[in-house]
């Protein structure tokens, strides 16, 4: 960690998405922020590897993967998260959008993990009253670190752009990095296979983030534009809720906010962040409730 960055190595020395490559190709140059530091990503016409200039005058390593530009501000200590689904030929790999939100990225990850808001915030699409019950599901830790929630079932009236009627959808959530979460969801046409949605959350600052969404959908009758539109409509329902959370950073003390059984995954996520001493975007225990 460079002196004075103040950011824990688990984040500083890891890769983070900062832009869509399509957007960068179109614009040639994108100025953004990561972990509180300003940077400029530039695409030279001879190279597909963007260069990253830091406001401090230094440069940082960059890579392109899954249609996104990834940057590491420190010394990379691990690879970019692996998504085997992205190699499947019968899937659309869609950059479904990048959404700025005025809240800690950890709150955005937690919201994505949360089944009990679906019937309210996404009423008519991902849930609907009176189907509000969240049945018991399982939560475990992943061998490489992280949290997995399995056996998640939730009634959805219109789970995807191709769904025509409501049914119980099976989900598996995996949090693989503090700011990265993916969801596997049974495909409405072929329930033996699943669609994948990943969120790469860019911590712009402790209280601001950009949520980059990646979809790996089976190629049903679906156009890429329809997938993008659906994702954006859904995210627009989450944004005002996220921006009305107080405090904006995620409290890790279990007494700060009251969890119930349906929040087992969120409680495990907070515990895992606490145990890993992740502080960026969080309110650690020792700072009180």
């Amino acid at each position, binding site marked *: 960690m460079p002196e004075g960055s103040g950011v824990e190595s688990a984040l500083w020395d890891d890769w983070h998405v900062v832009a869509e490559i399509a957007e960068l190709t179109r614009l040639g140059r994108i100025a953004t922020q990561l972990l509180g530091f300003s940077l400029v990503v530039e695409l030279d016409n001879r190279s597909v590897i963007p260069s990253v200039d830091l406001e401090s005058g230094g440069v940082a390593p960059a890579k392109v993967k899954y249609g996104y530009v990834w940057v590491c501000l420190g010394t990379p200590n691990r690879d970019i998260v692996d998504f085997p689904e992205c190699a499947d030929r019968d899937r659309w790999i869609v950059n479904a959008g990048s959404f700025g939100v005025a809240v800690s990225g950890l709150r955005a990850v937690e919201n994505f993990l949360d089944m009990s808001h679906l019937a*309210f915030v996404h009423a008519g699409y991902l849930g609907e009253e009176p189907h*509000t019950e*969240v049945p018991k599901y399982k939560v475990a830790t992943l061998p490489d670190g992280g949290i997995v929630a399995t056996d998640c079932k939730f009634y959805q009236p219109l789970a995807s752009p191709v769904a025509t009627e409501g049914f119980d959808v099976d989900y598996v959530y995996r949090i693989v990095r503090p700011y990265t979460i993916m969801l596997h969801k049974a495909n409405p046409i072929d329930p033996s296979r699943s669609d994948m949605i990943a969120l790469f959350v860019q911590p712009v600052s402790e209280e601001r983030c950009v949520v980059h969404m990646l979809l790996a959908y089976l190629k049903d009758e679906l156009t890429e534009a329809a997938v993008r539109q659906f994702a954006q409509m859904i995210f627009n329902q989450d944004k005002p*809720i996220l921006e*009305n959370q*107080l405090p904006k950073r995620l409290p890790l003390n279990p007494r700060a*906010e*009251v*969890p119930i059984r349906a929040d087992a995954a969120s409680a495990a996520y907070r515990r895992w962040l606490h145990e890993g001493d992740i502080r960026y975007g969080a309110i650690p225990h020792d700072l009180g409730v």
Partner: protein
Amino acid sequence: MSDAEEAIRLWFPVSRCEEIVPRNVVQTELLGQEAALWRDDLGFVNAWENRCPHRGVRLSIGLNTGSELRCQYHGWWYASITGQCTYIPAHPGQKPPNVIKTKRYGCAEQYGFIWINLGDQPDAAAVPVLQLDSYTTMRSVFTQAPVDLVAQSLIEAHNFEPATSAGNYILETTGPGEKSVLLLQPMNAEQTVIHGLIPSLVRDADRLSVLRQFNGRVSEMRDAIERAAA
């Protein structure tokens, strides 16, 4: 005791009563704390900390059903008066634990305003007493300036003086004749709301012109105070 600790124990007006209408929720701020104000169908006004105990979403974006407030995020219900959580849709068959309650602030309706108190033991008898037989509330004016500065300029440059012994939060015009009363709401360290009332009943026919005149005057003072604060 510091001014801030002292202020926590006081009552402040935060809204005109008529603005807290049924089936609505209003957000306000006092001494840096956000509150959600809502009136149930029987007329009771609730003033709660503006965060859902569950995941911190502002209760002011929730739904007032007339007997409870429902949070927008996961639809939890909180009963009027007690703040008790009465229903958790994710577990519809279970009674929510008694410990799940909103944080309630002291709340009273007096002189046409909603008064709140952030302290742990709000005593409604301690709402300031104004010598008024009748009154008409004016439009409240938001000011981008700290409360001390607002009070100081009103006293030094605009002919106001403290109306009670309880400090500079309640001021009245000096001199003889009908007095105007200004009530200051310190929102936070930078912002203040000036609430106003005149100590008489205004005939309906005169209401509009009286309100206009008062509002014009307070707005001018506000502009002068903001210029001084800038």
